């Protein structure tokens, strides 16, 4: 039952869209394929486990929490080189662009959010998976809202980024309502 509550909390109430304000651009969200979603879910969950274990067993006892960004960057660096090596073997290259780094920021947020949970690898894995799922679901909801808004006759000045930000705000308000209602249960 606790796991179900945890999944619900991270997917909807504790959505990183509200807590971190990590909303991607339209290009980022409109091309989310099943394969991308799967890779994203795996990377988030695995990196959260490593970060969580490292944070709880090494950084916290030594009171070195402020080294978290360096540690996380080392993880990212390792993942980057492993991915690059794998892609090179298939004659492809890893193109690091702004979009790629936006994903890294989301992964970081997930790792940090779940890294502070009591150390139980399965618990961290499930929470990180739910958190990544929540981020993808929020992006998908937002994309659908934007597609519907494209059909509406909204004022010129609100078209594009302003209406997108306002829509995110309204979504965040809805999620916040859920958080207030269910926070005591988790």
């Amino acid at each position, binding site marked *: 039952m606790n796991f179900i509550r945890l999944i619900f909390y991270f997917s909807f109430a504790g959505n990183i869209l*509200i*807590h*971190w*304000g*990590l*909303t*991607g*651009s*339209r*290009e980022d969200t409109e091309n989310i394929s099943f394969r991308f979603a799967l890779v994203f879910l795996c990377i988030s969950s695995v990196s959260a486990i490593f970060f969580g274990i490292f944070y709880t067993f090494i950084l916290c006892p030594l009171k070195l*929490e*402020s*080294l*978290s*960004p*360096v540690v*996380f*960057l080392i993880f990212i*660096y390792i993942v980057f080189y492993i991915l690059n090596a794998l892609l090179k073997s298939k004659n492809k290259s890893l193109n690091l662009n*702004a*979009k790629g*780094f*936006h994903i*890294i*920021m989301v992964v*970081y*947020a997930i790792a*940090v959010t779940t890294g502070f949970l009591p150390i139980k690898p399965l618990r961290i894995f499930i929470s990180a998976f739910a958190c990544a799922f929540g981020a993808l679901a929020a992006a998908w909801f937002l994309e659908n809202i*934007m597609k519907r808004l*494209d059909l509406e006759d909204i004022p*010129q*000045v*609100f*078209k*594009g*980024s*302003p*209406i*997108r*930000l*306002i*829509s*995110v*705000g*309204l979504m*965040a*308000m809805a999620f*916040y309502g859920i958080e207030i209602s269910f926070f005591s249960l988790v």
Partner: protein
Amino acid sequence: MNDSSTLISKENLSSFLSVLPFLVFADNMQKGLVFSLVFVFALSSAGLTSILLPQSIDKNNRFWLSCFAAAAASSIAASTLRLLDPLLYESCYTRIFLASITVPVLKMSVPLKNSYETEKYIEKILLALAYGLLILIFGVFREFLAYCSLSTDSTLPKIMVFPMAGEASGAFILLGLAAAFVKAVFLKNKRINP
């Protein structure tokens, strides 16, 4: 984003979106000031490392070393904040670390190809500093809107006049309205001076 006009380039938009977590979390002047300073500190560390590292080092490794310098800068900033104000540190240290992986900081980490790029580099610095200032101004504006007052002591009990301005949802809505205002001004200028 579906910006029909070319007011905001895609590059600038990705930079703005990566700074968005700070804007959303900076709900008062103190947090705005902290994030603004950390952002500028991480940015200057990344930029300086990128410039000062010898050319003999591989471009890819120079980029990663600059990223590590930015991460180390945010760590130093977090430790300093911990000494100065432990309460404030507890509330915002996870976000402080985001500074090292924001798009403007990463852009600064990209080494210069040649000396002709110096002008472009200065542009990047100015734009990034503008983001730092924006975080501070937005924090001040939100605190003023929420409490109708400004204070450097976050422990003081205060009455909220407009609670939405202090919430994340309110931050998004305020940013949307600000973006609409900026766009309206640009469009008006465009009509006057086509």
